[in-house]
């Protein structure tokens, strides 16, 4: 049943890819879906691009390991949709109205009239894309291992990458948009059904909470707001996932595609509603799986990332497991195809333009770059031996520290200059990569004298904001000078 549903789903995606490929007439279609997308399409595709394996596999896995504190990643969803739409959607859509702005780096190049800013933004996007795309491919590999019984993870990752490439390589963002809508709908249905079934199987909300609180393995502390995490980590999660969302290119990129800018006012409700509904899977499985383990109905999970899969294999009926697998595939693939497109645009559009050598056929070059980027991301993910959620937090933070301050403040405050913008992107990205390296070698946060649990992303995001503001304040106001 699971195999059949997964097969039907993959065939549908291939069909959408082939249909879209015939409609790609140029870079505008390939990179921003021809700017013809309706509000529901943009809302659903933003949700499906934003929510990935991180939510379906990583979230319940993290909750299983650290308890309720993991939900601090999900809490900002209450305001991030409105925050994004109010601060960025309109300016980004208006800047792209003339058909020459396709990427976040394009936006910054136009705003600051500086090719170095475009180049730095492209480098930041590439650094984050490798991590985030790698995360999706690794999760897809884990899923393919479970569904198809493949023993080798690298082989499963390669097969998963080939499937995504099959539909996104030729259809570009046009294929990505339409498949995202389909995938978003499947994700919402899967998340709601999974949450309801898991909580019901564990005996209802009261039984879930009492089982977890009464067990020796978890205990009442597991349900405290901070779970097993240091409080500095919780505050870091809230900051990085609340503010850093504005730097996520796979989300803000969707704003370029809106056909009618006047209807933007409804977008926060669509994105926020869809995201809240989808996050039920994190809340439901994140609590029900520990409860089922505490009740002795599910064996303790050795690898936290496989908690969702263990539940599906052991306790879900075949039809639900099939829908859940399709939802999981949808979550992973919708995010992966967005990153393939964004990464290829950074590599073959933004970087050559920043160097003053734009390519003649950017679409053809982007297709080649997509394959290369996918290979690099897969290799990185296989070498990064940590939880899916950890890889997701690192990649999210890279975008957040590099791009959020310059987009949020740079587009709203005319005094911000190119030097401040460039410094903010370079330091934010570099610092996050450096601190992540130190953290993986147990040198952060302790060796820098910081509190236990401090997130590299929270530090680099704050520093990036401060650099942008300080350099802007130190620079004479051009309007006062000209007066």
């Amino acid at each position, binding site marked *: 049943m699971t195999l059949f549903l997964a097969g039907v789903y993959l065939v549908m995606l291939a069909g959408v890819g082939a249909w879209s490929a015939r409609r790609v007439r140029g870079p505008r279609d390939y990179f921003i879906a021809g700017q013809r997308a309706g509000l529901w399409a943009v809302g659903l595709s933003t949700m499906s691009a934003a929510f990935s394996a991180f939510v379906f596999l990583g979230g319940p896995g993290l909750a299983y390991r650290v308890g*309720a504190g993991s*939900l601090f990643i999900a*809490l*900002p*969803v*209450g*305001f*991030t949709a*409105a*925050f994004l739409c*109010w*601060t*960025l959607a309109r300016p980004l859509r208006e800047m792209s109205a003339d058909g020459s702005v396709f990427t976040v780096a394009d936006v910054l190049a136009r705003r600051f009239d500086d090719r170095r800013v475009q180049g730095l933004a492209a480098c930041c996007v590439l650094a984050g894309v490798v991590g985030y795309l790698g995360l999706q491919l690794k999760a897809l590999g884990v899923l393919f291992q479970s569904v198809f019984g493949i023993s080798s993870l690298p082989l499963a990752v390669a097969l998963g990458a080939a499937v995504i490439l099959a539909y996104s390589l030729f259809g570009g963002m046009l294929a990505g948009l339409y498949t995202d809508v389909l995938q978003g709908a499947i994700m919402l249905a899967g998340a709601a059904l999974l949450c309801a079934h898991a909580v019901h199987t564990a005996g209802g*909300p*009261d039984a879930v*909470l*009492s089982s977890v*609180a009464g067990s020796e393995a978890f205990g*009442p502390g597991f*349900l*405290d*707001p*901070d779970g097993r995490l240091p*409080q*500095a980590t*919780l*505050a*870091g999660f*809230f*900051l990085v996932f*609340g*503010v850093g969302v*504005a730097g996520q290119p796979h989300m803000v990129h969707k704003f370029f595609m809106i056909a009618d800018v006047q209807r933007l*006012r409804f977008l*926060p*409700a669509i994105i*926020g509603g869809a995201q*809240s509904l989808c996050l039920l899977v994190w809340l439901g499985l994140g609590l029900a799986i520990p409860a089922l383990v505490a009740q002795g109905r599910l064996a303790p999970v050795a690898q936290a990332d496989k908690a969702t899969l263990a539940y599906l294999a052991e306790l879900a009926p075949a039809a639900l497991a099939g829908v859940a697998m399709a939802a999981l595939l949808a979550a992973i693939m919708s995010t992966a195809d967005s990153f393939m497109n964004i990464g290829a645009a950074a590599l073959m559009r933004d970087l050559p333009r920043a160097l003053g050598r734009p390519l003649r056929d950017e679409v053809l070059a982007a297709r080649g770059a997509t394959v290369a980027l996918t290979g690099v991301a897969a290799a990185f993910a296989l070498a990064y031996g940590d939880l899916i959620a950890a890889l997701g937090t690192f990649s999210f933070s890279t975008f957040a520290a590099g791009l959020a301050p310059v987009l*949020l*403040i740079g*587009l*709203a*405050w005319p*005094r911000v200059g190119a030097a401040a913008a460039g410094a903010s992107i370079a330091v934010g990205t570099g610092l996050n990569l450096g601190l992540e390296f130190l953290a993986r070698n147990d040198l952060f*946060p302790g060796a820098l*004298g*910081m*509190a*236990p649990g*401090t997130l590299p992303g*929270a*530090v680099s*995001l*704050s*520093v990036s*904001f*401060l650099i942008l*503001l300080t350099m802007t304040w130190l620079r004479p*106001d051009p309007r006062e000078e000209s007066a």
Partner: protein
Amino acid sequence: MQALERGSIALIALCALGTLGAAFSAHPAATGVSLLAATLLPAALIVLGCSGVVRRAGSGVGVLLVVGLLVGGVLAAGLVGMLRFDGWPAMRWALIWLGPVALILIAVAYAATFERLVAARPRKAESKRRAGERR
């Protein structure tokens, strides 16, 4: 540059400084500072990004927005501190999820208020002009 933008930019800087400063301290108060900064930072960024809307709606609404979000931030930071008790677990969950729900309600309320005020201003001015013409 007007006071609204100046105030929001200063608040953004304070939040970033607060987060960074709190990272160097293991004192329990540092968590409160971090959470407060994390809550206020998006608020300040919204005010900066939507300063045109806030100004059109009137400075009173701008002040209300900042004060409302400030109170929300203090409550959010305080709530996490207060929740560390051995009470009924379901109550804790209800309280945790009240936070985002309250934020959504605040966001919707503010959006509706802005839309109405921004739309009402020209209508009010127009009706005054017509009343003047009639007189």
